[in-house]
């Protein structure tokens, strides 16, 4: 990529402005994920409500980013690296928006879970998983702003850890449900939460892949390592 200044300095300002919006949006999504996971562990309904309210601002930012990107395309006809910058901005804002929605959903379920008997250790496990995903998002956005394809590749590899955490939780929740049907309601909610966090990891991976496209002009072609085995899992346990 070429990072020299444009002859039209307003073009540089436009590109910098939409990338600043992406970083702002990323920061808000990261904060919401952390707050939502902490609220879940602490059974803190008030914080969960704040997370849900904050998602509106994230959605509004996504809309603003897309409008700005459309304006740059219409007025400046970006080419090459500039074009890839605008294209990736639009995709990344979509990825971040989905992550924001998942965090909001986590907060919603926190309200229900706070009414149910707690499942041992689930809150802490979910928070660790959310922490791992939030870290991936942060690194993916760092890679984006630094145009660092190597760092982006590391983020892609990290998704394996998140998948494995999800596998472990999936088995754990199944076991709890087998043990006592009264756990089913809470475990179903917790499982959706774990699944949603796993999906956030996929979005962070997708952002990392956009960074690779932005820097090299090509998406990574070899399929990334996938560790989510739950589609094939049968614990072989029948309720007694």
């Amino acid at each position, binding site marked *: 990529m*070429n990072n*020299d200044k444009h002859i039209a300095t307003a073009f540089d300002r436009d590109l910098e402005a939409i990338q600043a919006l992406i970083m702002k949006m990323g920061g808000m999504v990261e904060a919401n994920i952390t707050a939502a996971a902490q609220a879940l562990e602490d059974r803190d309904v008030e914080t969960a409500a704040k997370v849900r309210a904050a998602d509106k601002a994230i959605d509004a930012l996504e809309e603003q980013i897309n409008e700005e990107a459309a304006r740059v395309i219409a007025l400046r*006809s970006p080419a*090459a*690296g500039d074009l890839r910058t605008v294209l990736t901005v639009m995709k990344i804002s979509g990825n971040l928006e989905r992550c924001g929605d998942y965090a909001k959903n986590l907060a919603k379920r926190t309200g229900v879970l706070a009414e149910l008997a707690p499942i041992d250790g689930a809150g802490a496990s979910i928070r660790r998983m959310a922490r791992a995903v939030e870290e991936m998002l942060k690194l993916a956005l760092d890679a984006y702003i630094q145009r660092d394809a190597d760092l982006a590749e590391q983020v892609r590899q990290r998704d394996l850890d998140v998948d494995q955490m999800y596998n472990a939780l999936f088995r754990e929740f199944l076991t709890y449900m087998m043990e006592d049907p009264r756990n089913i309601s809470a475990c179903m909610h917790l499982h959706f939460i774990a699944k949603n966090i796993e999906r956030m990891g996929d979005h962070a991976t997708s952002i990392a892949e956009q960074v690779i496209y932005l820097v090299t002009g090509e998406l990574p072609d070899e399929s990334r390592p996938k560790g989510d085995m739950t589609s094939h899992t049968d614990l072989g346990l029948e309720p007694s």
Partner: protein
Amino acid sequence: MNDMRIVKRDVEMNDIKISAKDVQVYYGDTHAIKDVNVEIKDKTVTAFIGPSGCGKSTFLRCLNRMNDTIDICRVSGEIKIEGEDIYDKRVDPVQLRAKVGMVFQKPNPFPKSIYDNIAYGPRIHGLARSKADLDDIVEKSLRRGAIWDEVKDRLHAPGTGLSGGQQQRLCIARAVATEPEVLLMDEPCSALDPIATAQVEELIDELRENFSVVIVTHSMQQAARVSQKTAFFHLGNLVEYGETAQIFTNPEDPRTESYITGRIG
């Protein structure tokens, strides 16, 4: 990258129409074209882009020996069209220019009727055996120039009375009247308004059915719109030559990227 426009015609356009090897051009002591090697495909629009003075027009003019008319200009290297060396002593430049038509920046119709503008080339090259033959050539050429419907009722009105865009399409029709194999265009739209430009661009796309078109343009957007292959010239060098979509999304050379993204390179 797969440009769907190329894939569509892949069967018939794998032929190389023009091949240039180690071409050097000097204007007196100035080395204007340095070691240019390029293979231009048949039935394809190839755009030459680059900053002013980069040599793109000079190289274009080598392709039909227009540089012969400049005393201090020397061309070396080899340029072949359909395998035939156009700088060979036995090649008559006049015949060559019938085979390699050219359209210029400013529309330059002859101060004659629309009919005679088109008929002039076929007449001097003896392409028509009868008046009826010539009428056919004129109609066919004007249709190819996408201007027939606008002028068919006033073929004997002066060509200079047409609008700028119409004059340029008339000049394109004139250029195709001698059944050339290659059509060279040196900034054909720079004197036209956006509507006339769009009409000429649409015409260029249609001409690709039958001709190899090489266009020099200062408008990167135009190069992106009309061409399938793009060559970027800089300081007399051919810096990068490739599929247009690749050049405009992921150029290999940083100088190409600097130029097409509007940076100081």
